[in-house]
């Protein structure tokens, strides 16, 4: 009731609830007294309610900043003067030949260039996205005593790689810049699901849960942890900075037989972005980091590493247990 009375005093309730409260207060004089007491207690806040005025040219400068960005982003096309009427018979056969050769040369050089540029833009966007993920992972780690990154569990609802997304969401670290489907063609945001909702699916709607295990991690791979002293452990900020924690997804899902040596399909099979514990992102043309296959453990299995130096980053549905 306290929260409702506070909400009523500060006008935080929806219109309907506000009206219900008014009705309630009309019938309960003792509640009116409490509202009066609350208003009096909150009154000091009003002494600092005067807003600071914005600087006089803030709007102009903001719009200028956006215009500047637009100019950089979308350069104006040069104005083309109206075309002169072409004289009939001006084009001769050798001209056609020369023009065709020129066009074919341009296509031969230009098309791969366009594809390459697009590929590079996709790789850079994905690397940027992984850096943003690193901010979220570090924030998560800084909010627990053992400074652990989200850890995939051995059993239960959070026992697949993609469950790091709901773990981040629970902790309020899933900000809107993050994308779980990041390819050369663009990206899409992660599904905002809490671990409670995930557990509910796990307990009562298994087919939906199975679908979520494939979907939540998108086209990224996340650390499945490693075995030590008979237990499963996750990575923490105390681990070596070079250890991979997240990357483009492997060329196979957790439920599929592993493929050796092939790169992630995210960037046309040419390599994968790999995010390390220290926040660095590198585009690697093979899937080996310091001789370790980041997608399989030393036994070439899709499961947790055999020790902390045996990194295994699993696709969304991959599990730490074989």
């Amino acid at each position: 009731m306290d929260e409702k009375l506070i909400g009523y005093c500060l006008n935080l309730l929806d219109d309907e609830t506000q009206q219900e409260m008014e009705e309630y207060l009309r019938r309960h004089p003792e509640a009116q007294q409490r509202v009066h007491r609350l208003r009096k207690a909150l009154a000091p806040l009003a002494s600092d309610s005067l807003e600071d005025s914005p600087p006089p040219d803030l709007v102009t400068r903001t719009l200028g900043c956006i215009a500047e960005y637009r100019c950089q982003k979308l350069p104006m096309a040069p104005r083309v003067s109206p075309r002169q009427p072409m004289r009939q018979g001006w084009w001769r056969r050798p001209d056609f030949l020369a023009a065709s050769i020129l066009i074919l040369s341009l296509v031969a050089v230009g098309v791969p260039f366009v594809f390459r540029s697009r590929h590079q833009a996709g790789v850079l966007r994905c690397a940027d996205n992984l850096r943003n993920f690193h901010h979220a992972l570090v924030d998560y780690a800084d909010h627990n005593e053992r400074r652990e990154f989200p850890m995939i569990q051995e059993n239960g609802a959070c026992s697949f790689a993609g469950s790091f997304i709901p773990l981040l969401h629970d902790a309020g670290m899933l900000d809107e810049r993050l994308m779980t489907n990041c390819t050369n063609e663009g990206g899409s945001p992660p599904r905002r699901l809490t671990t409670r909702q995930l557990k509910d699916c796990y307990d009562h709607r298994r087919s939906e849960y199975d679908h979520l295990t494939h979907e939540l991690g998108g086209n990224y791979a996340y650390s499945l942890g490693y075995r030590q002293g008979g237990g499963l452990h996750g990575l923490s900020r105390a681990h070596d900075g070079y250890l991979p924690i997240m990357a483009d997804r492997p060329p196979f899902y957790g439920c599929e037989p592993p493929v050796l040596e092939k790169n992630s399909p995210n960037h046309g099979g040419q390599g994968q972005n790999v995010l390390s514990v220290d926040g660095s992102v590198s585009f690697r043309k093979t899937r080996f980091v310091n001789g370790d296959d980041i997608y399989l453990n030393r036994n070439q299995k899709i499961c947790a590493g055999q020790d902390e130096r045996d990194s295994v980053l699993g696709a969304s549905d991959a599990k730490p247990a074989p």
Partner: protein
Amino acid sequence: MASTDPSTICSDEELLQGVSQGQVHLFGELVRRYERELYGYLRRYLGDAALAEDVFQNTFLQLYLKSNQYEAGRPVKPWLYTIATHQAIDAMRRQGRHQAVSLDEKRATEDVGDTRSLLEMLESREQDPLDSVQGEERRLRVRASVEQLPEFLRQVVLLAYYQGLKYREIAEILDIPVGTVKSRLHAALVKLQQAWDTSASPRET
């Protein structure tokens, strides 16, 4: 009769919808509309005028960049505040001012609010602690007490009290359940009352 610019009578949602469809000139009206309110929020949140200006500009740049993702009818105000809050946190993080509070500490702080009700606290009080303090001194004490709140509680006080947003909108902005907003606000108000009690007591004795 003076003619009215049609953009001034459009809702925020209509303006952003227009921007997303290429009517870029409508964006200026949106910036003007939120100039005072959003700058005030950022100034209070960041406690630094220059930083608030930068974050204000970045917020609208981000909104502009995301305008092509705008889904018709989605309320603009909470979205704008979400972007502004994230930008502010990023700016503080760059300056090393962002408070990293452990989840355990967060829960513990919220629990304090739950165990001792604000109203119970007020009922046992004979006199309001800041009654004897007026004017600028009162304002400064109040501001200092709000600034000393843990960041996750201060966010809720700023959005609820100073920005006048609804519980539901705050939940959307901070991406937390409405129940958490309520408990955080309750905890924040308990802490403020305690701070005011403490700051007033030496003068009374």
